[in-house]
Structures are given as structure tokens and as C-alpha cells.
């Protein structure tokens, strides 16, 4: 476990530099404090770590492999490797965090879990983790998303979760978070709110990063084993930033350049400014009056107007760099990986690859060793891409 915590921990109030903190209604403060204490305690307890690690290996299928991508490498003139979170149970890295938080929920003696979800990835993961431990589960999902992603709604129901369509605001992810927070206030005694990315009030951004750091810890060791050494670049897509934080954690102390790729329509680093939302101070898309703007990306998982506070800090400090890519580049990258290597990536992941393909020979020197975090599989996106590429419905 020595590697856990390689990215700097926040201060005792959850600040990563100017970002982070805990901006929640007073009613939730005790829960946040209790959670922080429970997490600190658990994360220092070998029996908890063992339970977490065992669940990841026996249930989630970890370690996920690092796959060399020889054909794409040749096409691009790189040495390209992919960390295969698409192979984790439920199809993305989201489950790593859920495993940690559900085990923690049980440890805290709580019997119910709530979560927000956009397209449904985190919702399905949470419903999965809850089913495994026999926790009651309620998932808040923007009404617009419940219609767009009705199969994921049904998936969650199959897993025994209740899905609550959120009809406030823009009826999408950001409003689902608001609604989950509103719900949490009413039931915080027996209910844990399982936030799905490195966002929200302290300790969530830190805790979720810790639960996701397994990605980077594994990947660093696997690259060594493959003889690839330390990569020149580590590239991940960024919605809230949990998969990026997780893989960065394995390389923060190395020479690797850390690259986060946002959707152009939800680029909190490129287009945002400091603000407070959902319990954290971070970079947000907002208008001149401080009203939060909706993100717009074809990729539901990146459709979030903010970014985790640690990323805001990493951007500020220069340790990580953040770029944005547009929808067309993403579609190209989606097809490219599929046909070159037999891996259909999530649209979110395709953002990271799109940046790589764009920047080879520019920001990325030819011949560089590049590690792509393949955060999820594209099965969930195939219908949408088909519609976009074929112009059919």
C-alpha cells in the first residue's frame, strides 16, 4: 500500500491549494466530518484495505491489464499503451470508487446509499456495489437523461436500485447532484452519498482519488513489467476527473507529463473560472453573474460544468496540463481505436485519444511512450455514434 497517497493530500480542511474545501449546508457538515474520519480510519486499517483490494480482485476483476497498442502505435509513430479500465466490472473505472465507498458505508453502519448519475455509468456502478453488499440504493438522474438512457435506468432497477428522475434545473447531471444533496440532508443518519467523481465537499475529492489511485499504481508497475519504463505522457479524459486522478496518482512523482483532456463544451480549465458548486471550490463554467452554465458534450460522462478541485490545483501548479477536444475529433478517435486495435472505447476515453492523435508531432514528440487511460468501454455509446455517423435514429 506504500504507493497510496503519492499525490499530495489536501490540508485538513480539504484544500488543494486554492481549491477544494467543504461548501455544504450546515446539516451536512457533521456527515462530511464523520465521513472524513471514517475514511481516514479505514484507509489506515489493513483489514479495510484488504477487503477493498480483495473485492477489486475477486469482484471487479483487477488488476486490469495494460495493453500495448502495436498497430495504432505504428500508425501514429508512438509507443502507445492503454490501461484497460474498460475491462473492469460494469465497464469503467467508476466501480473502483464505488467498491471503496460501499465498503465504507457498511463500515460506518449505514444501510443505504444514494448517488447521482449522468448517462448512468456511476449509477449502474453504485447499484452494483449496493446489490453486492445488500445496501438499499437510490440513484438521482436528470429526467432528460432517464429518457436518453432508459436502458441504464432499467439496469439499475434490475440491480435493485430505485431511480429518481430529477425534474429541476436543466434536468441533467448537475441537477442530479443538487437533488442527491437535497436528499442526503434528509437521511444522512443512515445514508451515505456516494459521489461518482473527484468532486464535492471534502473528503470526497481526496477519498475518490485514493479509491481510484489503484489505476495508476497498477499501471506504473505493469509498464515496468512490460519494459516500457516511465511513460513520457500519461493521458486521461476529464469529466469530474476521477479516472485522470486515479492514473495520475501512479505517476505524480515521476517525470511523466500528466495530461487531462476535457470536452470542448465542458472545458472547466480552458473556459472556466474559480467558483463554488456542489460543495467544492474549483474551476467552473459560469456566466458573468456567477450562474453555472450547462456543459455541452456528446459524451455524457464529460457533460459536467466543473472539474475536481485537485485538477484545478494541478492545472494551477503546472504539474498537469489540460486541453480540450471537439466532437468530430472524438468520433474519429473512437473509430480509429476500434478498427486499429479491436477496442471500442467509451466516448469519454476517445477524447483522450483524440488529443493524442492531434498532437503527435506537435505537443507529443514522435516516438514518445504514451499511456492512455482507457477509462471505459464504448458499448454504451455505440447507438449514439451510429446515429451520428449514419445520420439515422
Amino acid at each position: 500500500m506504500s504507493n497510496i497517497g503519492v499525490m499530495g493530500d489536501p490540508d485538513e480542511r480539504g484544500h488543494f491549494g486554492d481549491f477544494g474545501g467543504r461548501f455544504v449546508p450546515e446539516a451536512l457538515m457533521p456527515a462530511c466530518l464523520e465521513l472524513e474520519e471514517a475514511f481516514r480510519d479505514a484507509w489506515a486499517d489493513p483489514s479495510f484495505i484488504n477487503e477493498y483490494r480483495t473485492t477489486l480482485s475477486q469482484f471487479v476483476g483487477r488488476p486490469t491489464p495494460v495493453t500495448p497498442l502495436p498497430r495504432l502505435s505504428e500508425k501514429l509513430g508512438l509507443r502507445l499503451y492503454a490501461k484497460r479500465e474498460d475491462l473492469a466490472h460494469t465497464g469503467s473505472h467508476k466501480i473502483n470508487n464505488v467498491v471503496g465507498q460501499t465498503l465504507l458505508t457498511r463500515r460506518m453502519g449505514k444501510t443505504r446509499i444514494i448517488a447521482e448519475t449522468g448517462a448512468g455509468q456511476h449509477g449502474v456502478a453504485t447499484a452494483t456495489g449496493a446489490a453486492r453488499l445488500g445496501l438499499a440504493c437510490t440513484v438521482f438522474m436528470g429526467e432528460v437523461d432517464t429518457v436518453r438512457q432508459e436502458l441504464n435506468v432499467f439496469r439499475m432497477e434490475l440491480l435493485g436500485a430505485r431511480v429518481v428522475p430529477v425534474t429541476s434545473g436543466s434536468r441533467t447531471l448537475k441537477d442530479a447532484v443538487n437533488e442527491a444533496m437535497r436528499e442526503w440532508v434528509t437521511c444522512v443518519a443512515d445514508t451515505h452519498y456516494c459521489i461518482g467523481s473527484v468532486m464535492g465537499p471534502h473528503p470526497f475529492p481526496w477519498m475518490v482519488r485514493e479509491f481510484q489511485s489503484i489505476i495508476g499504481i497498477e499501471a506504473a508497475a505493469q509498464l515496468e513489467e512490460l519494459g516500457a519504463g516511465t511513460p513520457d505522457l500519461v493521458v486521461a479524459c476529464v469529466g469530474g476527473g476521477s479516472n485522470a486522478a486515479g492514473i495520475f496518482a501512479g505517476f505524480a512523482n515521476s517525470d511523466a507529463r500528466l495530461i487531462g483532456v476535457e470536452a470542448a463544451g465542458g472545458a472547466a480549465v480552458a473556459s472556466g473560472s474559480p467558483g463554488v458548486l456542489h460543495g467544492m471550490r474549483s474551476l467552473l463554467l459560469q456566466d458573468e453573474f456567477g450562474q453555472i452554465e450547462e456543459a455541452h458534450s456528446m459524451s455524457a460522462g464529460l457533460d459536467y460544468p466543473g472539474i475536481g478541485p485537485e485538477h484545478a490545483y494541478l492545472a494551477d501548479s503546472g504539474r498537469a496540463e489540460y486541453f480540450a477536444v471537439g466532437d468530430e475529433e472524438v468520433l474519429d478517435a473512437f473509430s480509429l481505436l476500434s478498427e486499429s486495435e479491436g477496442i471500442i472505447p467509451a466516448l469519454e476515453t476517445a477524447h483522450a485519444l483524440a488529443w493524442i492523435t492531434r498532437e503527435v508531432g506537435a505537443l507529443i514528440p514522435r516516438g514518445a511512450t504514451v499511456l492512455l487511460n482507457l477509462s471505459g468501454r464504448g458499448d454504451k455509446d455505440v447507438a449514439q455514434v451510429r446515429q451520428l455517423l449514419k445520420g439515422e435514429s
Partner: protein
Amino acid sequence: MKSLEVTLRAVRENGRKALVPYFVAGATPDWVRHVEAAALGGADAIEIGIPFSDPMMDGVVIQEAGLRALQAGTTFESIGRQLTSIDTEVPLIAMTYYNIFLHYGLARSAGRLHEFGLSGAIVPDLSLEESDEWRTSCGEHDIATIFLVAPSTPAERIKEVARRSEGFLYASARMAVTGASSDQGDGARVVANVREASDLPVYVGIGITTPEQAATTAAVSDGVIVGSALVKVILNGASVHDVENFVRSFRDAIDTTFEV
């Protein structure tokens, strides 16, 4: 001591239970007249909600009012402009989410609040721990920063919060966001806990819906805050006169019970 606290302590000293209605600025075109009507109806202070896109602590009624206000183009500045026409002596207290002030600039926001004639601010997502800078800014412009305590707040923490709160302490009657509720909630218990820690006036809010509830709650506190119940009436098209009567019905119930 901030002017607001001076005023509100005086209310208590006069043996009067405070009645604090809540309005969403900009929810209707004549919202400023509603505020005046509330003052006429017997309000001791009035909360002016500045609408925010993501009102995490608010239930459906106030969300809806905020959305209407935003769609009508309401901004911090437009609210200020409209408030210059107001005709009342009752203290006005801003209520909004932290990002509004943060984005505008904390010092600048506090200054503008003062210029707009407001004397306090409630920022429900600003925790005590994160509030130093805001409190400093408010200090420079005689804006009282009012904190909340909740049924979940432990005794030790109540002490901390009460020590920093100015004007009054907002005691949340229940673990819930704003919205109408039929039961009494935990207001009495929260107030009792606060009393042990502080002599600040304690007003109870969240879910106070009927004059009777208000009266019962006022019996065990220094005042009550009426939000969603009033906003709902306004969303349903209440006239200025209706608003005055609505507030007066609460005033009367409270006063009758305590025979001021």
C-alpha cells in the same frame, strides 16, 4: 455589533417574537412591492433571495421561483437597482449561494449589499470553516453574516457557529431543504441546544407553513422564518394585498399566542 443585530436584539428585548418572511427577488415583476407589503403586514426582518442556478438547499417551490427570476433576467445588480425604490424601515437580509458573491468578488459584494440597503447575508452553502474571508468583507460594510445550525449539528459545533453568527442564528427545524411541511420538526430541540451555547437571538426556519406552526415555534424561539409557504402563494399569483394579509396572518397568530 452589526446594526442588524442591534435591531433584532431590540425586538427580543421588546418582548416581541420576530417574523422573517422570505422573498425570491425577481420571481415576479412586483416583488419589491411584495417586500413592502410584508413589512406592513408585520415583518421584523425580510430575507431577499438572490436567485442562483443551483440552489442546493432549496426545495421545489423556491427552485421554481428562482428559475422564474433568472429567466426574467434577474441579477445581483438588477436586484440592487430595484431595491433603491423600496419604502420600508424593516431590515433586509440577503440570502443566496456563495458562488454569487465569490464570482462578483467578496469585498465588492459586501459593499454592494450595503449600498443596496441590506444589512445581513445568509449563505447556506458557506460553511463556518470557509467563511473567514467573507466575514472579513462583511465586517467592513456592516453586513451581518448569519449562520445556520441544523438538528444534526453537535453541541460543540453549535458553540463555534453561534460565536461567529451575527444578527441571529438560523435554526433549521428539520433535516431537509426549504419547503412546506406539516409537522413541527425539531426546531424546539435545536433552539434549546443553542440556548446553552449562546444568547444570540435564534430564529427557526425550514418548513414553517401555517400561522399555527409559526405560533407554536415562536413560543420556543426568538422568531420564525417563513419561506416556501409565502413563495408558493406568490407563484400562485398573490397580489400585494394578499401578501400583506398572508404575513399579517402569521403576525397575528404569533402575537395572539403570546399576547404581546
